[in-house]
């Protein structure tokens, strides 16, 4: 059974805050839920499916459904594959709708790592005795930035990718972020500024990393008949794919990600190819994340990512593949340390023609959103969506 065309994204909302010292995480979830439902022209009373992940406080859907007053849920899902969870939730919502288990699904994400002073990329983590990998990785100083840096170093070794290549990804994101009044980093940067910023984890520099921000976002997914009855442009779910990639006994290949599998699955379901995609939201926890995913999704051959991203090829109006036109995680927003939600939201804006005019892709009928969750160099989830304007 294919999910192609079985459901539509009818509401999307990104919280404007980037620092929420005076708000609780649950409150942020409620604010984005309200925003996405209002965007769709719906209310909480219409929601019969609810999706959240590890950022939700308490026991996921139990705590949040109670807090949000969602008293008529017939379907819940708290799949947690890190920052890629929310792309998987869209696919799972489409599947649940196709099976008749719900009609209108709400997906929420929120968090406040910035207010909590979290050094997301470099901080040592505590071990959990029940997590089998912790004892073999945390004493060795496993960090988020370090895990992605290991992939970048190997990619450079095998394919000749350079720091300047990676810097072009940040440059493109910053060119887009200058038009986003909510972006944390609005100032365009140059390749030189990126490669001259301090090293965080060789070969990744400070400006190769995403921002740490508070905030959140929400989506509403509904049955196509309902989507057509609402007043918003209809964004249909055309293809979906998921994958998990680990070390599988100590044999990690750091040159590719699970996007190789989730992307192929999504393109197969959608019946399209990378050449058909007009706009791409590509997970950008670090610049290297983007480069490896672009290769794995098939936008260029393996090892060609460095050449592909050079010279502004990802800049809207300049290059062949406009990406992350909101400024992405690299410049705009990475709420709760999880960037998958905002990837879907900007793809929806593009398909509706509601992106900032300076970055809106002309005639944007087909878009891709892709997320990587967890640690690229240790174990991660991948989720890909192909979305279509109807």
């Amino acid at each position, binding site marked *: 059974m294919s999910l192609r065309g079985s459901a539509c994204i009818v509401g999307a909302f990104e919280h404007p805050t980037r620092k929420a010292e005076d708000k609780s995480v649950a409150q942020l979830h409620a604010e984005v839920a309200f925003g996405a439902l209002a965007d769709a022209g719906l209310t909480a009373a219409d929601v019969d499916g609810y999706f959240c992940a590890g950022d939700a406080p308490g026991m996921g859907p139990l705590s949040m459904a109670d807090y949000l007053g969602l008293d008529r849920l017939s379907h819940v899902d708290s799949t947690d594959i890190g920052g890629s969870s929310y792309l998987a939730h869209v696919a799972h919502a489409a599947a649940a709708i196709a099976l008749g288990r719900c009609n209108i699904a709400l997906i929420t994400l929120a968090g406040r790592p910035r207010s909590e002073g979290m050094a997301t990329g*470099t901080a*040592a983590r505590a*071990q*959990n*005795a029940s997590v*089998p*990998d*912790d*004892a*073999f*990785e*945390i*004493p*060795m*100083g*496993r*960090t988020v*930035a*370090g895990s992605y*840096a*290991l*992939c*970048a*170093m*190997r990619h450079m*070794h095998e394919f000749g990718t350079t720091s300047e290549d990676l810097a072009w990804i940040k440059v493109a994101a910053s060119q887009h972020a200058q038009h986003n009044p909510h972006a944390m980093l609005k100032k365009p940067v140059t390749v030189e500024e990126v490669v001259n910023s*301090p*090293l*965080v*984890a*060789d*070969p*990744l520099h400070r400006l190769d990393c995403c921002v740490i921000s508070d905030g959140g976002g929400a989506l509403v997914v509904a049955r196509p008949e309902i989507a057509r009855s609402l007043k918003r442009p209809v964004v249909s779910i055309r293809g979906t794919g998921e994958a998990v990639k680990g*070390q*599988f*006994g*100590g*044999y*990690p290949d*750091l040159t590719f990600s699970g996007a190789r599998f989730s992307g192929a699955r999504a393109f197969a379901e959608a019946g399209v190819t990378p050449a058909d995609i007009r706009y791409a939201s590509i997970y950008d926890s670090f610049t290297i994340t983007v480069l490896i995913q672009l290769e794995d999704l098939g936008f260029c051959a393996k090892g060609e990512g460095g050449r592909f991203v050079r010279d502004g090829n990802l800049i809207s109006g300049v290059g062949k593949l406009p990406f992350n036109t909101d400024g992405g995680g690299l410049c705009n927003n990475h709420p709760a340390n999880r960037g998958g939600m905002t990837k879907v939201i900007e793809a929806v804006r593009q398909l509706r023609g509601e992106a900032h005019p300076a970055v809106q892709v002309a005639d944007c009928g087909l878009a891709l959103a892709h997320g990587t969750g967890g640690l690229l*160099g*240790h174990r991660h989830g991948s989720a890909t969506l192909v979305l279509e304007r109807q």
Partner: protein
Amino acid sequence: MTERSIAAPVVDPSTRPVWEAAAAGRLLLGLCRDTGRHFHYPRPVSPFTLSGNVDLVPASGLGTIYSFTVMRVAQPYACAYVELAEGPRIFTNIVDCAFEEIRIGMKVRVVFRPSQAADGTPGAPVPMFAPA
């Protein structure tokens, strides 16, 4: 420059022999008897067949650096995946080597570094790698 404090590995019943061997200066790997393949991290089931037909076996302790990074924190350290002679790539640190001399492909050998729990009590030694 002071070296970072290495957190004591949390030991559970299934991995206790691994850390006891580390205390004796020996690196152990999992061996799947169904496939003949080594695996890491150790566990009482095979990641290749899911059967319990596995053993812990001594590793040569020799390998080459598959990838590395230097964490530029207050007490910098070098993380790496080292590809062991037996096959598995083990997440570890590179020690006894200037950061600027670390290279992918460099031959390394296991050394053990002391660890300590948050309360200061000593933990099991942790396998790290130095130039061979």
